[in-house]
């Protein structure tokens, strides 16, 4: 490699303007959730309060006294991102009504309150807080960034870990094909709470994701978004492949992209020539035990494929 390329450096000729998700955060190289945070802040803008439960994105963004956030931001604990957001929303309702001149607070009409949690903090330990937030009808957008395991603590299995994935608590072994459950369907759970707008999105399509964030923020009441965000460390793939793997999850139907309004599916990102899930699996170290040629592995791949096919049919995913 020529030395002039080694010396190429435009650092001082670039501008960071108005970023609300700032560089200097400590997310791993190629982090999918870090992309989700970028898109959320770009779509929501500065008139936003973010409530974030404990997890990777909290830890990488807020080592005291630093913050990567340009918006208002609060982290409390692992299982209450949704209820902290509920409390903030209730406070602003009270402020609106009472017009406290001692507090310099704005009208809640122009304010976005967003809770952003990982899959564990949302679908597992935080589901009580989320259920309460949705059921009571708080004007909060909840976004679950899904990297399919507890990555912050070292890749333990969550209810969003796909079938067959080897994690540190669902390791593959002579008596184990890895995780033995399919992903819990959070969109149906949200929709069954009567949430008006529920959607999925992938970091591989930021335009679509940001549009959904913007659309959700126009709606009064609770909203739920599930955004797919691959983790190079936890899934064991090269950091450059994050967008590709997110896209492949969509193209195989492992992660269908759709919208639900008032409990009905109103739009589906149709897929022509849906790829077999095998193409997505074989690119990740967490599934490598499925490709060692032995008998139970084929069954496991088939089981995951069947689950995907059935969901695809329910959703009308195939073009």
């Amino acid at each position, binding site marked *: 490699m020529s030395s002039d390329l080694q010396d190429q450096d435009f650092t001082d000729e670039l501008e960071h303007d108005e970023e609300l998700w700032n560089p200097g955060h400590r997310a791993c190289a190629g982090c999918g959730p870090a992309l989700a945070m970028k898109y959320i802040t770009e779509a929501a803008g500065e008139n936003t309060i973010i409530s974030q439960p404990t997890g990777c994105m909290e830890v990488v963004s807020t080592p005291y006294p630093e913050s990567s956030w340009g918006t208002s931001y609060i982290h409390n604990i692992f299982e*209450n991102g949704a209820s902290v957001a*509920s409390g903030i929303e209730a*406070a602003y309702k009270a402020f609106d009504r009472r017009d406290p001149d001692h507090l310099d607070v704005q009208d809640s009409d122009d304010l976005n309150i967003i809770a952003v949690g990982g899959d564990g903090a949302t679908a597992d330990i935080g589901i009580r807080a989320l259920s309460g937030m949705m059921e009571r009808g708080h004007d909060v957008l909840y976004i679950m960034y899904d990297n399919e395991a507890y990555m912050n603590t070292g890749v333990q299995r969550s209810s969003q870990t796909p079938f067959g994935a080897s994690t540190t608590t669902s390791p593959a072994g002579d008596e184990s094909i890895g995780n033995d459950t399919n992903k819990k369907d959070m969109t149906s759970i949200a929709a069954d709470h009567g949430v008006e707008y529920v959607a999925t999105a992938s970091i591989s399509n930021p335009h679509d994701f940001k549009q959904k964030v913007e659309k959700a923020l126009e709606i009064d009441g609770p909203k739920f978004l599930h955004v797919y965000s691959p983790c190079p460390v936890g899934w064991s793939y090269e950091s450059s492949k994050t967008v590709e793997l997110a896209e492949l999850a969509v193209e195989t139907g492992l992660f269908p992209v759709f919208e639900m309004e008032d409990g009905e599916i109103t739009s589906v990102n149709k897929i022509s020539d849906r790829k077999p899930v095998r193409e997505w699996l074989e690119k990740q170290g967490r599934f490598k035990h499925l490709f060692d040629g032995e008998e139970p592995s084929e069954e496991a791949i088939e089981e995951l494929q069947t689950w995907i096919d059935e969901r695809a049919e329910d959703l009308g995913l195939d073009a």
Partner: protein
Amino acid sequence: MAKAEQNPSEEQKVMKGTSAVARGVMAANPDVVSAYPITPQTGVVEKLSDLVADGELDSEFIKVDSEFNAASTCIGASAAGARAFSATSSQGLKLMSEPLFTAAGMRLPIVMAVANRSLSAPLSIWADHTDAFAERDGGMMQFHAEDVQEAIDHVLMGFRVAEQVNLPVLSNFDGFILTHVQEPADIPTEEEVSEFLPPRDPEYTLDPSDPKTMGAFARPEHWTEARYEIQRAMEESKDVWAKTVEEFKEIFGRDYTEYNGMLDTYHGDADYRLVALGSMCGTIRKVIDEYRAEGVDVGLIRPRVHRPFPTEELREALGDAEAVGVLTKEMSPGYESALAGEIKGTLYHAENQPPIKSFVVGMAGRDITASDIGAMIEETMEASAPMAFDEQESWPQLREELLADGGD
């Protein structure tokens, strides 16, 4: 000692303890109330719901899914700049424990009424102080009320001090004994309270006009200092509390100023001094009267505030006693009751160390009778140092015949 009159005066109303506390909360005019039902606290939540439903109180009332999220929503509301209130008991307080410790660390002045009740197992709905003591080390200020009037007033004074020192408050009052009693009490009006309690003026809010990041994690080089600030705030709160009880007396006439508002005494210079928290002190006073009539010099020292701990005040109030008897409704299995241990620790470097006997009584609502108290007075009078560990504390109400092998 400001005690409620037996017959209500014109300003006083007779109502259930929980309703009276709710009326007091209304006068503090919180922006957000978030609470979940649990016996024996439920009446507070129900009454506040009624007040909101009838338009008498325009707080946002969040009908939460759990005590866990009652505390969590209060944290969100308080961080946004709101005055937030909740109430709970026992298991509910346990469920709040995790967020409450963070409320202290994030310096959010949430005020809670805690209707004290035992902790499971076995399940029991009846009063003792094991719930409050289990949260002792979280950084929440803790007060204990002897009667309904104090339960009301402690909540109001709690807001006043909490919002100055930025710490949460647990205002304890005994389940059933105070929550379900019909007692005459002065219910402060919103006008009176607004003179005493100005609107909350937080240093930081979450408003996007001045964005902040709250709840950052701290590395080892900063954590100790961040958490030590709670200790400093607790120390500072003693002065603030002393001023608060003075201001309260000026506006409302009720005098809680003894020992800087930390202790309340009854014949506090007697030879033999009992120490106890909360409602059992009503019975203790009557028994003290009987013993004094027979020439026994016995008195009562009642901590009104348990956190911050009234260290200097207790040294002064107990140091020259012949002997001290600590009557407490909590236990610390494997050692001795926490209150007894704390009082001994307090006196260790004081000039004098009177002998101390402690008594675990009134657990899970077991009645503390006059004769129980008489027996404990007599045992306290016998106390002399040194004592073996198993002589220090006893369970005078224990029914040994119910224990396996008769307790052997």
